[in-house]
């Protein structure tokens, strides 16, 4: 028998590989589900879905994010953005194989309710994917598929950050930052949330179904810190820097929307009712956020813009990510609307008010929608608000969620700042003025995106 919602599993064999089993950590009525999960055989339906979901999430980065971001930069920087997406994909894959998976998902030394070093970071017992065979499994899917699925999350998270420092960072500095950031910031947070009993944030009871804290708040805050440390683009905000091809951005956003079903529904790690509900609430929240953003824009600027509606959709996708496993359709509708409206203000007003050049609004969209989503995930998990979680007190879970958000914000901000300062002192973060004016495509890669005549 397979149960319909992911939950915790304390069986000794599973402990070693527990990861997303902690999706509904803490307050989720552990004991009830513990015995139901007896399955140790590989399920072909679950496996087929997770194979597809892994590909969908990879598609979110290449070409999804590459096009989404690429369309928003100026023509002279298109290739630099696409190159960064592609290069991070390759770099993170290798790091994941070498030690990333082990540091994120090894459960060595972890014990439920015990806070020790391994509550924060995985052990080294799975370095080089030691022990992985075709027969190893994670829940009902081959572990190889789980390694691949989680790898695609590790890829997209540093990719999201590049939007903040687009059009001015050295390629070499970007590679160093991405590799170090993955190691120092992402892997521990993924471990703290997803590695099962004994994980720091998991044991606190933080709900994060598909990565609102791990991926979006983490990346969004790093983006804010990065754009402040590296400084504004020359001429911003007085020189016009309009998106050079919003068509790319629409295609990219559409691929993100589609790929996000792999991200959210795939986070059930099974082809079951939880995955189906995650898919549906993802669709609803995304549509609601697109409408929310567009409505506010229409009222305040008298126009409904293309960049606005796709930005709203992305805000909705981000916001529903932590909630996708526990909120109901009605909760998703409300969550999406709120995220779309809030992000409209943070991406179009706050940035200019405070004067930080977050070029493609990584903070304004990802961090803010991530925080809105992470907080509301708590109350919206309650059956009183149409959710499917076992949250006892709305305020209580909101407080737990807030602690998770606050921890992630501080963790990401402080460590990202240290890494960026370190790289700035050694390699230098920024290209020189002449290179920036020439554009990173020519200056860094000696190529041009458009050779039209």
């Amino acid at each position, binding site marked *: 028998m397979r149960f319909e919602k992911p939950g915790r599993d304390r069986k000794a064999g599973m402990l070693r590989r527990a990861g997303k089993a902690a999706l509904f950590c803490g307050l989720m009525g552990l004991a009830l589900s513990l015995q139901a999960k007896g399955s140790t055989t590989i399920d072909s339906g679950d496996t087929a879905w997770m194979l597809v979901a892994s590909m969908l999430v990879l598609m979110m980065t290449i070409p999804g994010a590459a096009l989404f971001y690429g369309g928003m930069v100026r023509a002279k920087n298109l290739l630099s953005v696409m190159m960064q997406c592609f290069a991070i994909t390759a770099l993170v894959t290798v790091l994941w194989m070498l030690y990333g998976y082990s540091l994120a998902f090894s459960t060595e030394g972890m014990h439920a309710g015990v806070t020790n070093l391994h509550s924060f970071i995985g052990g080294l017992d799975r370095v080089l994917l030691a022990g992985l065979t075709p027969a190893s499994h994670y829940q009902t899917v081959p572990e190889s598929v789980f390694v691949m699925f989680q790898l695609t999350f590790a890829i997209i998270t540093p990719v999201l950050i590049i939007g903040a420092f687009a059009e001015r960072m050295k390629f070499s500095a970007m590679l160093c930052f991405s590799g170090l950031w993955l190691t120092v910031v992402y892997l521990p947070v993924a471990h703290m949330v997803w590695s099962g009993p004994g994980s720091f944030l998991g044991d606190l009871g933080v709900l994060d179904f598909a990565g609102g804290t791990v991926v979006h708040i983490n990346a969004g805050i790093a983006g804010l810190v990065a754009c402040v440390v590296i400084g504004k683009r020359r001429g911003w905000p007085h020189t016009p820097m*309009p998106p050079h091809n919003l068509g790319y951005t629409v295609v990219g956003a559409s691929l993100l929307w589609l790929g996000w079903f792999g991200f959210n529904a795939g986070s059930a790690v099974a082809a079951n009712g939880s995955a189906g509900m995650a898919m549906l609430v993802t669709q609803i929240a995304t549509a609601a956020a697109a409408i929310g953003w567009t409505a506010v824009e229409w009222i305040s600027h008298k126009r409904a*813009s293309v*960049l*606005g509606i796709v930005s709203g959709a992305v805000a909705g996708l981000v916001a529903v990510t932590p909630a996708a496993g526990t909120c109901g359709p009605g909760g998703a509708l409300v969550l999406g609307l709120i995220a779309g409206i809030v992000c409209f203000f943070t991406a179009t007003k706050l940035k*200019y008010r405070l004067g930080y050049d977050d070029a493609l609004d990584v903070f304004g969209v990802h961090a803010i929608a991530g925080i809105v989503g992470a907080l509301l995930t708590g109350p919206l998990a309650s059956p009183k608000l149409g959710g499917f979680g076992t949250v006892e007190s709305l305020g209580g879970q909101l407080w737990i969620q807030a602690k998770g958000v606050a921890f992630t914000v501080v963790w990401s901000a402080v460590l990202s700042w240290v890494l960026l300062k370190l790289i700035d002192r050694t390699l230098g973060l920024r290209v020189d003025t002449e290179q920036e004016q020439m554009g990173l495509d020519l200056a860094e890669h000696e190529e041009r995106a458009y050779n039209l005549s």
Partner: protein
Amino acid sequence: MARNMLCCNKTNYEGRDMKWITAVIKPFTLDDVREALAEVGVQGMTVTEVKGFGRQHGHTELYRGAEYVVDFLPKLKIEVAVADEQADHVIEAISTAARTGKVGDGKIFVSGLEQVIRIRTQEVDTDAL
């Protein structure tokens, strides 16, 4: 070569019975202008895509709260070299064909033309038009 091609400074300007007519027009009027010019006997022209502004205002663009005023509007620049006696017809043809009556129809600039050489045959001036 029959003439000194470097003879270009203004004090030596002689205006050899030719005019250099430059018109900046709205892009969509090009076909009408080309036909009108063909009717008055113009046998060639150069067309360039240009941007600029005059009395016609530009527009604003807004991307996630970043508002840009776009002053420069796309226009076409037509350049025609003609004999003096043809000039008035050409000016009238362009004026009529490119006119919509709304602000932004463009301008016609007329100046004397000192020298023309057809590269293939080395013919000069009106023979080369």
